[in-house]
């Protein structure tokens, strides 16, 4: 019975939105490519010693400046994949693939 209850409680989580983490460190987004679904949340965490941002201007994604230690949460709304970058360090690139 306990096992069944646990399984039933876990169901909404499994079927619901997931949370994905992207670490910003060493002038990189890791993982560089994240696969998500609409409704999922992505959390970027700046562990670097420099200010960074997460920007995909064409998709309206703009974190603003993320000081070291800051995080930024963004909920995936549309089923549209996009590339993003840190505009302060344009060599830093990432991609969100929405399935």
């Amino acid at each position: 019975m306990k096992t069944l209850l646990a399984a039933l409680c876990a169901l909404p989580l499994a079927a619901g939105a997931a949370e994905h983490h992207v670490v910003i460190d060493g002038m990189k987004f890791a993982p560089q490519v994240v696969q998500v679904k609409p409704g999922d949340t992505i959390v970027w965490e700046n562990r670097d010693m420099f200010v960074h941002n997460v920007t995909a201007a064409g998709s309206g994604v703009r974190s603003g400046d993320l000081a070291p230690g800051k995080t930024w949460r963004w909920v995936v709304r549309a089923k549209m994949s996009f590339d993003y970058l840190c505009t302060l360090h344009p060599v830093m690139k990432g991609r969100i693939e929405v399935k």
Partner: protein
Amino acid sequence: MNKSAPLLLSALLALSAAAHAAGPNDAQIAAIVVAANAVDIDAGRQAETKTQNKDVRAFAERMVADHAGVNQQATALVQKLHVTPEDNDTSKSLTKDGAATRTRLAAMSGKAFDKAYVDNEVTYHETVLGALDKTLIPNASNAELKALLVKVRPAFVAHLEHAKHIQAELK
């Protein structure tokens, strides 16, 4: 290669030669790190006042901010470790050559200035990366100092790529 490059190269080659002889100690490495960052901050500040190019301005602003960040971390670490940065031939050469480059660039304007500044930034980041890999990181004896040098290395790589991108645009 621009005219300032030989100056910077001579300083860093001297550093390389010194490393073969004995290798800088942690106090000397700290002084070299602070001097190298200060040179790029000053170059960036000069560029901020002179350039009309938005990409060059954005790059210069980033150099000022990032290298100030590195120096803040370096200064905090040496204070924590009770190390007093020890000026040496390399740190003195870096400072002197940086001032000479700024004097040379002060006489320039427009695209000529932008090109000279960015060319110098490419050379600067290449040579500092070489110094980090061959001299500063291998010779750092304190683990935290070594870790800081390793941690800042990717920034120099990213800055170099960024500078090369602008250099190609300016051609």
